């Protein structure tokens, strides 16, 4: 869309705003929809923030798992459903063995890894056979794997695979129950390790931010090369101001009687999500990250320059599937109930919708998109049933609207992308 605006004349601020809004149409539209929904839902701000923090801790990991395949030019990996299955297999095993708490969670992490790697490898192989149609293939693959998953856990467990456990199995002794309660087991295994109140969390974030700002000031005073000057300057100002703002705001909350004081943030989960973000940045700067990008830009060029593009593609999917498996572990330990045959089904769709709402596209995705998208999409999740009820007297309407938005946003952004590609193809 950007090319529609005149490039020849000097860009005024107005042009910049115009270009910005055209490029981020979906995101801006969502901010507006979310705001309207929030307004009509008449929720208290504290309740909303609490819900939102829970949901970010629950879902951000899964959304972040999608980024690497996008870099590698494989589009949105609907097959993270398989990763989620691997995570659930581990959870079922650990629950069966009765290992609880963070120890149980660690064992889940260990068990799910090889399963997810195998799934990812097979997915990658399949996607290499269907180049150009990766997204529909991974979508159908998700459905197909779901069939196999049901075959194993509904038919084989208890009949072919020996297993005895009254709380997990159906009364006939064959097949797992539809929902498995993780309370007293894996529920909050990681979330409850350390929980800080919201003001305290904000204070800590503020302090860290000020430290980074300070470090940049130190670097600036010691003298930096010219080409980095503006960057460092910007960093030191931004981080310091943001840090100060956080600290001041946390004081404001603590001294007021706001309900925000009662919100307790799962620190360990948040830190791990932060580490995953760093991992994503880190990997895109290493050799393999460069390879991902080269393959993503042009497979032929990559092959000519000696990169084994098929292998790189498989690696991308393996990493994505593995992260999805762990993401599902975080998701379920927070949720506390494993819906044996349903928890994984919509993982792909929701994560992808969130990523796209954040402003990502089939060829472009970064951490910012993932985090912003998670916040916006889950805002919609929280407000839409209540807003639907307040506006039309029916919560169901809000839920349908939410489903429409999730499907619609995926369809729309895939469509826009394909259309742009077609227009570019004509120009060449």
């Amino acid at each position, binding site marked *: 869309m950007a090319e529609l605006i005149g490039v020849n004349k000097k860009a005024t601020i107005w042009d910049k705003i115009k270009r910005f809004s055209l490029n981020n149409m979906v995101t801006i539209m969502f901010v507006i929809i979310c705001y309207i929904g929030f307004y009509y839902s008449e929720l208290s701000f504290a309740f909303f923030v609490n819900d939102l923090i829970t949901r970010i801790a629950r879902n951000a990991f899964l959304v972040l798992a999608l980024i690497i395949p996008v870099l590698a030019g494989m589009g949105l990996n609907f097959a993270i459903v398989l990763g989620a299955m691997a995570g659930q297999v581990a959870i079922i095993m650990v629950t069966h063995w009765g290992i609880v708490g963070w120890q149980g969670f660690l064992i889940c992490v260990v068990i799910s890894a090889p399963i997810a790697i195998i799934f990812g490898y097979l997915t990658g192989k399949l996607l290499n056979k269907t180049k150009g149609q990766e997204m529909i293939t991974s979508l*159908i693959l998700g459905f197909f794997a779901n*069939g196999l998953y*049901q075959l194993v856990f*509904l038919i084989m467990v208890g009949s072919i695979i020996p297993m005895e456990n009254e709380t997990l199995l159906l009364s006939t002794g*064959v097949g797992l129950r539809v929902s498995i309660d993780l309370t007293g087991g894996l529920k909050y295994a990681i979330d409850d390790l350390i929980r800080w109140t919201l003001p305290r969390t904000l204070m800590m974030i503020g302090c860290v931010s000020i430290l980074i700002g300070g470090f940049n000031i130190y670097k600036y005073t010691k003298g930096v090369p010219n080409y980095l000057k503006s960057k460092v300057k910007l960093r030191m100002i931004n981080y310091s101001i943001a840090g100060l703002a956080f600290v001041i705001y946390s004081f404001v909350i603590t001294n007021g009687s706001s309900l925000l004081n009662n919100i307790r943030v799962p620190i360990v989960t948040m830190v791990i999500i932060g580490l995953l973000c760093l991992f994503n940045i880190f990997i895109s700067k290493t050799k393999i990250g460069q390879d991902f990008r080269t393959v993503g830009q042009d497979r032929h060029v990559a092959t000519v320059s000696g990169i084994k593009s098929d292998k790189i593609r498989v690696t991308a999917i393996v990493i994505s599937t593995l992260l999805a498996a762990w993401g599902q572990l975080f998701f379920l330990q927070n949720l506390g109930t494993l819906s044996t045959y349903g928890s994984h089904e919509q993982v792909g769709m929701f994560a992808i919708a969130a990523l796209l709402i954040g402003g990502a596209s089939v060829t472009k995705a970064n951490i910012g998109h993932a985090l912003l998208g998670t916040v916006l999409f889950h805002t919609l999740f929280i407000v839409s049933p209540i807003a639907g009820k307040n506006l*039309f007297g029916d919560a*169901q309407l809000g839920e349908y609207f939410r*489903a429409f938005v999730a*499907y619609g946003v995926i369809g729309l952004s895939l469509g826009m992308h394909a259309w742009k590609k*077609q227009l570019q193809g004509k120009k060449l």
Partner: protein
Amino acid sequence: MKDKLHVYIKQFGLPRIIIVTFLLSLCVLAVIYNLSIAGLLSDTLVRTGMHGVLVLAMVPGILCGIGLNFGLPLGILCGLIGGLVSIELDLVGFPAFTTAILVSIPIAIVVGWGYGVLLNRVKGSEMTIATYAGFSAVSLMSIGWMILPFKSDEIAWIIGGGLRTTITLTGRYDKILNDFAAISIGNLTIPTGLLLFLIAMNLIVWVILQSKAGIAMKAVGDNPRFATAAGLNVNKYRTFGSILSTVLGAIGIIVYSQSFGFIQLYQAPMFMGFSAVAAILIGGATVKKASISHVFIGTFLFQGLLVVALPVANKMLTAGSLAEITRIIVSNGIILYALTQVGGGE
């Protein structure tokens, strides 16, 4: 000889061999378990007729080059509107059925035209986008079903709050085709009307495909560049194919509903496209090639498999829903196989 066999297997496709073998072994099991073969056969015939038109809707889509039409729910929604209108008008019997079709066709033409225009803009990723176009249309219409101003007690909840989830067709056009001139031989019932309708629809599509427009459409689907060189308007004929496919989807769901005895609204149409896609692929179609015979063979095999699997699975295992799982694995497995055959590898 061995080479010949190899070529034959390759043409027929490994998954199809597996499916046919699976079906045959199920039939053997059915005989062993003493199930009524005639009953199973008549069920299969009914379900073939029931799903046949929906599967037929795949043919124009594949031939005009938009690939497997995962956007079938769009057509289905148009058909549902037609079905509801005919009840709202308080019609009964054949007039009701015909009105349903006649109302839905113009709607389907408009929707199909829009759908075709959309797909022309996204060449190369039609299937993914069609899937999501279908999904989002179903969700949007779910809102629509809650607010559309239908008044009839049979359709809408009396207390308000939109339309019913399932609408009974008893006394309207329930099984009107199935029972038309049905022949009973012992336990075997042949739903003559239903099958005749399916054959008639196939005939109409066949005639369209032999017409000038049909041949042009096939040329466009086969090789767009060649078609352009020959002076054909590629986009126009792709749109034509989408319209045809959407209209058939609309008629298909009305036939399906009358045989099923209920109209299902809200989330029900979401995954109907996938079954239809799977059926035509089992019949021997590919992402690029399809014919009328594939419709018959595919629907019969796929529905036969499902019909026989259910009682056999129930005899084998009391617990679980093996038949449903079979459906998921078989239908998605065959779609995956078809996608790997597109030849995307360079």
